[in-house]
């Protein structure tokens, strides 16, 4: 069921393709057209175009100051764009107040009204809409049941844990039956175990609300990968890249996305073959090492590229120390296997489910991160090793600015 839902969501129009506002049933629940937000001379969001279809979850992922929260505020009406248009269900709401947009919003610190009880918090939006009292009571009850908080209706927010407050905030946002739900780093104030638990609950909630469009702002890639149908990677107030989680993870189009989403190591390299179209295998020279990697874009001989390799894609070659010793002399090697790189282990961290190594590559002046699975042999700091990677697990990205 979930895969069917995702399939239909993928059929949503690509970002930056506006839907005519005159359409009776516009496909996009949210649409940003070249939206910029400035505070004086500071540009907080620059020319963002983005469309979110009904039933789709789009995560805005990026580091602090990348403009993701500003984008969400522009959608909610909390910030007035300095240029561009915001459309909800095809209707231009750029100049409309937040109260007139009918959007549910959940923020990082929950923003529950501290002087109101849980039930009054959930009823707040319904009272503002002048709903009859009997209907309010029924809706509040239903919402609290949905998030499993019916037993806490008469408590004050300060009497609840962080996770419980988050549930109430979600119930309050959904009580007004919005067509769009905006979540601004909703799990970042929770501890690790509670965050994992809430992530599962949000996933279940998403399945219960197939018609609501969700925009989820986060700097945590695991949340984005878990919840989002598409991920918009933001950087320096701009949209860097947008695509499905799988696309961005397996075939990132830029060095920043490769690094930010999945923490790929990026090795500078020079192409040695012609790859006319994206998707074929390309050959490159990384320092003195020959490597093969998927080239999602056209590459010409001599072109500068980066080879992106995820930490878990690296493998330690059998008999590593002896093999690496052969490389260590001049750092160039003598024609060893393609995609085999010698290095010296700089540090080893035990991470419970496995070990994380930092390895300084010999002859490349690059340090890569290697995740070893549990139960595998672990070298010690200072050991010489040979790292290998399957060509299909290495991907070329344009040599851009990181």
């Amino acid at each position, binding site marked *: 069921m979930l895969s069917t839902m995702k399939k239909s969501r993928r059929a949503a129009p690509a970002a930056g393709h506006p839907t005519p506002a005159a359409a009776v049933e516009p496909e996009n629940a949210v649409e940003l057209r070249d939206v910029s937000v400035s505070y004086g001379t500071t540009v907080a969001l620059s020319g963002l175009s983005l469309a979110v279809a009904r039933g789709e979850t789009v995560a805005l992922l990026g580091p602090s100051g990348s403009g993701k929260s500003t984008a969400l*505020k522009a959608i*909610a*009406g*909390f910030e007035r764009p300095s240029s561009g248009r915001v459309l909800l269900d095809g209707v231009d709401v750029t100049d409309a*107040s*937040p*109260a007139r*947009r*009918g*959007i*549910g*919003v959940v*923020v*990082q*610190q929950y*923003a529950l*009204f*501290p*002087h*109101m*009880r849980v*039930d*009054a918090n959930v*009823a*707040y*939006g319904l009272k*503002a*809409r002048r709903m009859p009292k009997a209907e309010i009571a029924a809706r509040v009850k239903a919402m609290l049941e949905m998030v499993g908080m019916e037993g806490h209706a008469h408590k*004050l927010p*300060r009497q609840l844990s962080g996770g419980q407050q988050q549930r109430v905030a979600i119930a*309050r*946002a959904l009580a*007004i039956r919005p067509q769009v739900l905006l979540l601004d780093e909703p799990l970042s104030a929770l501890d690790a175990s509670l965050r994992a638990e809430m992530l599962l609950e949000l996933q279940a909630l998403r399945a219960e609300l197939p018609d609501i469009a969700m925009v989820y702002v986060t700097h945590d890639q695991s949340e984005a990968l878990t919840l989002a149908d598409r991920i918009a990677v933001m950087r320096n107030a701009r949209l860097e890249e947008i695509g499905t989680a799988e696309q961005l993870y397996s075939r990132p189009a830029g060095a920043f996305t490769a690094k930010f989403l999945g923490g790929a190591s990026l090795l500078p390299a020079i192409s040695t073959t012609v790859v006319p179209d994206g998707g074929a295998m390309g050959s490159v020279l990384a320092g003195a090492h020959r490597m093969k990697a998927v080239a999602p874009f056209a590459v010409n001989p001599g072109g500068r590229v980066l080879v992106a390799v995820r930490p878990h894609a690296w493998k330690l070659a059998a008999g590593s120390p002896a093999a690496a010793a052969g490389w260590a002399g001049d750092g160039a090697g003598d024609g060893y296997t393609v995609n085999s790189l010698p290095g010296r282990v700089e540090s080893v961290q035990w991470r419970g489910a496995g070990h994380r190594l930092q390895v300084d590559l010999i002859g490349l002046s690059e340090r890569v991160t290697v995740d070893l699975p549990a139960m595998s042999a672990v070298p010690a700091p200072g050991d010489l090793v040979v790292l290998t990677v399957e060509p299909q697990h290495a991907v070329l990205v344009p040599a851009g600015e990181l």
Partner: protein
Amino acid sequence: MRTAAGPRVTPALVGSAGVGSARVTGAPKAGPASSFPHIPGSWRSWLWLAVPLLFVAVFFAYPLAQIGAQSFQDKYGAGVGLANWQYELSSAAVQKATAATLKIAALSTLGALLLGTFIALALSFVPFRGAGLVTRLIETVVSFPSFLIPLAFSILYGRTGVVNSVLGQLAPGLPALNFVNDVPGVVLAEVAFYTPFVVRPLLAVFSQLPRELLDVAGSLGSGPLAIVRTVILPAGLPALAASAGLTFLLTMNEFGIILFTGAKNVMTLPMLIYTRSIVTFDMPSAAVIACIQVALSLGVYCLYRWTYKKLSGANHAAPR
């Protein structure tokens, strides 16, 4: 485990709270850590308290006790029991002065609360150039002596003031403005002087109010007025109560403003005390009225503390 100095340190406490907070047993009494009086009930503690206690006793408690004692004496120092009290409490002048005091204090407090809340809301939530300057100006008013306000009122709005002169030239038939030397003049002057006492704490509270609360309230469908009513003012309620209590206390004891308005028919308790003690030298009578004034002040203070505690307490909940 032993430290370098030799005292025994409870190991469990070292691990959790660090050496600085460890319980030390068997430590010598001498040394930098034990030379200062930390032991409750020590005579050294009382020595430190002696100077301020002596000051309070000489300059506050004793004069107050003297006033209390004088209220039971006649002009010549002879004891008269409760006669002075019976006379003053049944006196129409004292009753009228008490009513006028409470009425002016209540009206002034209400005015300061309304004006102060409006100003604080505007300064906090309606961004405009010069908001900072306005805030500083309002704060400056607190540093002025209170009598400057009625003085300025007299110059501007008095019977021979600027406004009446202009009005007299523009419209000779119009009756002259004549409110400065009466209750409205006193109330307006007190409102003008005490409004900053409401603005300042509210500004502090409003600046701490998370912006997200207002944003979320807006997204849920509330307009600006509804947000003020349902989110902002409830958050400012403890500060409002504190401001109201303080303003009521100060206006109840206000003397300079009333004196400088020259309002002869505005007789409050402080004015009555002044008249009896300085003008007619009736010290026993002034002492009784002063005691009444002190009792009123303490009553209002207790009420204010109770209200403040109730509003800012952990268990209050707004209506559903």
